[in-house]
Structure formats: structure tokens, C-alpha cells
């Protein structure tokens, strides 16, 4: 008997976020006909790619028992750096695609370095991840505000026109950001579920001491998860910057919480030890869908948007945890 119960609850854990996603789709279609239009659906997918990609990185960090609060500020900081690099190289490099590639390369480098700093401070300096990333969160947020002089950094229009293709362009009718999101998700899935590294993340998140005794390079693996997170943030900014061509102190505010929420809605354990990439992808879609559906209706007062979001997030996690099944009489 107990075995049957376990398989049931695992099934539900996998299906939970998908059930919530489908429910939201039905709700959306019911609320407004425009919801199912191809334009709206591609908007939703492209929009969720930022948080989604960041959240895939966060899945690794959280699975290995860590947390990264700095991602939103880091995204703003990297966006600012990319814009400054492109604007300053305008006179020196003639080929705009080369210029953009340099900025993209720099972005990946800064992202990896920023992640590495978070990782080393956590593992080598033995400071709690919460405090380390709370600190770097403040640092990057201040840096972007300083870089922008309190205002907004704007990308040069000539480069912006060429670069904007990265966000607005499509392949087979699907926007590029969605393809990037998909690729990152597939790579993330393989890395987390099909490699030794992924298994080590699970092991460390479950029990760091046991992992250490099992000859796992705990510090190295944990630092690696933060580096992956940094690279994911940089990928997200690479497709974010061409959208509006600007960065300010307002960029990426609360992305960290949205990313963590996406990860948890998707079925990853906040305390570590278990992670699911596809769940995270669905989690990010759910978060974007809520905002989209609220914008498509005037049935709910604008002032209550946050409340609706809160209820749906809690409901989605409730479904996924399957607590209602355990309590139900058998």
C-alpha cells in the first residue's frame, strides 16, 4: 500500500505544474478571444524567456542547496556594461555584427565572473549564500544606477537597429528568444539529469556532509552552479538588451524572486536535493501567463493584481506538492 501512495504522489508532482499551466490556458481563452491569437502566444513565450533562462540557472543553484538573490541586479549591471561597451566601440569598429558579438562575449564573461565571485564567497569564504548574494545584489544595483547617473543608459540607435533583430526576429515563425530559451532548457535538462555533475548537485543539496564523504568536490560543484547561474543571467541579458535598448536602476527589479518562484512552482525543492528543469520552464510560463491574462481583462481591479498572482502561485505549488491527496481519506 505505501508504495502505491508514493508512485501516485510522484506522478502528481510531475503533472502538477502542467495541470496549473493548462488551467491557466483555459482561463485565458475564456477571458478573452485575443488570448489564443498567435501574436499573443508568441508575446508570452518571448516574454517568459528572460525569467525562464534565469530560472534554469537558479534550478542548479537551488538543487545544490544554495540560493542566488543577485540575479536581477546582475542582469541590470550586465545590460549596462553591454550598452556601454557597444556605445564606446561605435567609432572604433566598423562592422556592427562584430561589435555586437564582442558585447555578447563580454556579457558572458562578466556573467561567469560575477557567478564565480558569488560561488567562491560562498564556498571558500564560508559565508551563507543568502548573505553573499544579498550583498552582491546591492552592489550591482548601485553600480548600474551609478553607471547610468541615476537615469537610463540607452544603446546607440544605429547598433540598436541591427541588434534589435535578436529580440524581434523570428525563425520558422517563432521569435529568437523562444529558441534560445528552448536551447538553454535542453542543455540544462541534459546537464542536470544526465551527467555526473547533475547527480552531484542532487547529492550536495540532499546532504552536503555525506556528499563530501563520498569524495564529491563539493566546493567545486557548488561554485560551478553559481557560474552557470551567472552565464544564464548573461544569456537573458543578451536577448533583453535588444528589446528596448536601455538599462536603468529599474531593470531586472525582483527578477530574483520571480526566478525563485518559477523554480519552486516547477517542483524543485527550495531546501535543495531535487530539481526539475521542465518544471522550471513551466513555472516561468505560469508567471508570465498570470500577468498577461490580467492585462487582457478589466474584470479585476488593477489594485488587486498582486493578490491574484499570489493566489495562483500558492495554488500551483499546492497542486504540485499534492498535499491534498495525502490528507484525503483512502
Amino acid at each position: 500500500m505505501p508504495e502505491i501512495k508514493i508512485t501516485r504522489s510522484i506522478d502528481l508532482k510531475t503533472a502538477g505544474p502542467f495541470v496549473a499551466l493548462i488551467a491557466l490556458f483555459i482561463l485565458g481563452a475564456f477571458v478573452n478571444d485575443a488570448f489564443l491569437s498567435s501574436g499573443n502566444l508568441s508575446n508570452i513565450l518571448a516574454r517568459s524567456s528572460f525569467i525562464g533562462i534565469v530560472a534554469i540557472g537558479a534550478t542548479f543553484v537551488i538543487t545544490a542547496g544554495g540560493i542566488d538573490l543577485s540575479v536581477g541586479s546582475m542582469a541590470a549591471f550586465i545590460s549596462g556594461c553591454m550598452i556601454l561597451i557597444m556605445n564606446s566601440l561605435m567609432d572604433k569598429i566598423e562592422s556592427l555584427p562584430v561589435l555586437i558579438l564582442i558585447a555578447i562575449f563580454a556579457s558572458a564573461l562578466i556573467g561567469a565572473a560575477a557567478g564565480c565571485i558569488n560561488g567562491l564567497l560562498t564556498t571558500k569564504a564560508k559565508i551563507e549564500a543568502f548573505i553573499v548574494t544579498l550583498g552582491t545584489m546591492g552592489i550591482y544595483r548601485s553600480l548600474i544606477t551609478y553607471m547610468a547617473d541615476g537615469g537610463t543608459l540607452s544603446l546607440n540607435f544605429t547598433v540598436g537597429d541591427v541588434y534589435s533583430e535578436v529580440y524581434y526576429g523570428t525563425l520558422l515563425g517563432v521569435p529568437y528568444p523562444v529558441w534560445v530559451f528552448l536551447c538553454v532548457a535542453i542543455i540544462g535538462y541534459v546537464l542536470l539529469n544526465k551527467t555526473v555533475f547533475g547527480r552531484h548537485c542532487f547529492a550536495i543539496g540532499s546532504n552536503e556532509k555525506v556528499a563530501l564523504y563520498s569524495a564529491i568536490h563539493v566546493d567545486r560543484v557548488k561554485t560551478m552552479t553559481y557560474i552557470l547561474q551567472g552565464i544564464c543571467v548573461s544569456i537573458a541579458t543578451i536577448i533583453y538588451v535588444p528589446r528596448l535598448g536601455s538599462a536603468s536602476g529599474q531593470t531586472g527589479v525582483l527578477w530574483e524572486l520571480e526566478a525563485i518562484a518559477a523554480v519552486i512552482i516547477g517542483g524543485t525543492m527550495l531546501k535543495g536535493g531535487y530539481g526539475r528543469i521542465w518544471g522550471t520552464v513551466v513555472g516561468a510560463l505560469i508567471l508570465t501567463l498570470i500577468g498577461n491574462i490580467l492585462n487582457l481583462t478589466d474584470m479585476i481591479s488593477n489594485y488587486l493584481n498582486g493578490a491574484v498572482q499570489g493566489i495562483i502561485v500558492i495554488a500551483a505549488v499546492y497542486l504540485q506538492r499534492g498535499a491534498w491527496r495525502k490528507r484525503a481519506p483512502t
Partner: protein
Amino acid sequence: MNFHLGRLKLLTPSILAAVFGLSIIASASAQTIGVSIPAATHGWAGGLNFHAEETKKRLEAANPGMKIVLLTANSASEQANDLEDLVAIHQIDALVVLPFESAPLTGPVRNVKRRGIFVTVVDRGLSEEGIEDVYVAGNNAELGQVSAKYIKERLSSGGNIVILRGIPTVIDEQRFDAFIEEIEGSNVIVLDDKHANWNRDDGFTVMQDFLARFPKIDAVWAQDDDIAIGVIQAVRQARRQDELFIVGGGGMKDIVKRVMDGDKLTPVDVLYPPSMIATAMELTALKFLSNAPINGDYILGSPLITQDNAEDYYFPESPF
């Protein structure tokens, strides 16, 4: 003076002459003016910080005895702490404050006033009358009204509009209510309004959804220029720039430039100058530099920026 006011409407016009007509006498005794403003969390506040810094530099350079302490706060409670610090640590003689929120800061500002400190309140009025000596503000209601008038006239034969609002606050309410009051009774139909929180990303997202939802939109009231930038991109993405026009607000250099260049998508902008902090600081400094009476309310106008006058409002060196 390098601050740029739209129209300086004084309740007592004679004060204007008195204030700007007098010769400034450098004072021998030292004064400290405390300035407490919100941190640069969005474009407009960035402009505010820029002008506050500039004015501080200029006033200190021009008046050797004068010291200006500028503090920025991220929340109302942080600002209340700042006010206590200004009084206790910096021992200010005058305070220039742009309250984060009206109600929570009324008490703290009243406490400052009780110490006999000269108080200038900027932009957001306190919940209780008679605390401040000087009040300098933009006119939020006028911003809404001017925007509505323009849209009403452009769409005199009728049309559909959508509204992107700011962060749910008193400022947003005042602008929105005045706009709706002015637009009522005209042929213009307001399809819906949503909060876009005075930032570009939300402006983009909300506008994308409006475009998906409504097949015909004739005008957009974005209320703020940061929102307007996001709206412009969303409209371009949907290739619907020939169908509608956008009215922003604030006077951001990028938008004013577009107006100046005769962009059909953004034919006008409505001023709400962040440089009002400069007006307030200069006036407060005058308190110590002259005997001119300065107490009273100073309400700056929110004129319509059109292609003809855009040049007067274009400041490429400002961050906003």
C-alpha cells in the same frame, strides 16, 4: 540660473519679482540646508537626483558659508530616519524635502518644523496643512488635464484610447482622475487602463497586451515618458505605428527630441520637470541670503510640449 521651469505660476506674482530681482548677498555665518529626496529608482527620479546634485554644487560654490547635505532614501521609513539624522547629526537650519509618500512623512516633517527649522516641501504635499514654509510643486492634475485636452481635440470626431498608469500612488490618482474628468463628455472612448509602474519594461508588456486585445486604438496616454518608450517599441513590433499616437509625460530628453523632430507617433509631450528640486533649493537658499519674503506656494505649470516649443525643453546633458 540654469533650471528650466515651464511656467512659474505664483500665487502672489509680486513675490517672483522680489525673489529674482534682488541682489544676492553672500552671508558670513554658516548655514546647513538638508535635502531629502527619493533615490533614483526611475527615470524621473534620476533627473531629480541630477538636478539636486547640480544645484548643491552651484549653491555651495557661490556661497562659501553654505553647506548642503543631500540624502536619498529608498522608502518612506528610510526617509523618516534621514530626517532625524539631518536634525540630530547635521544640525540643519533648513530642510528641503520631497516626501516619498505624503501621509507617512507628515509626522516626521512636522517634528523637524517644531525645532524651528525652515521647511520647504516639494512635489508631494503633506497630509496636514500649514507645516511647511514654502511649497514647490508640479501640477499633476494639470498634467492629466492637458494630456486629455490634446487627445480630445485630436480625436474630436471620436476614437478609442488606452491608458498606461504609473505606480498606484496619489500622484498617479491625481493625474488619472483629472484626465478622466476632462475626457468625459467627449467622443473619446477609454478602452481600459492598466498600471505600467513608470518603467519601460512594463510599458512594453502592457502595451503588447493592449495591442493584442484591441484591434483599433487611436491614441495612447502613457502618462510618463519611460512608459512611452516601452509603448513605442511595442507599437513598432506590432507594426501599428500609423494607426495611433502616444502622449507621454515628464519631459524626458529622448521624447522631447522626438517631438522636436516631428515624429508622428509622439507628436507632443507634457512637462513635469524634475528640476523643480532646483527651484526649491534656490528658494530655500534665498531665505538665508536676503530679506526677501519667500514663504508661500509655488506651483509650476505642466505646459504642452509641441514641435514649435520643444527646443526650450530639450536638455541633452540631463540623465532624464
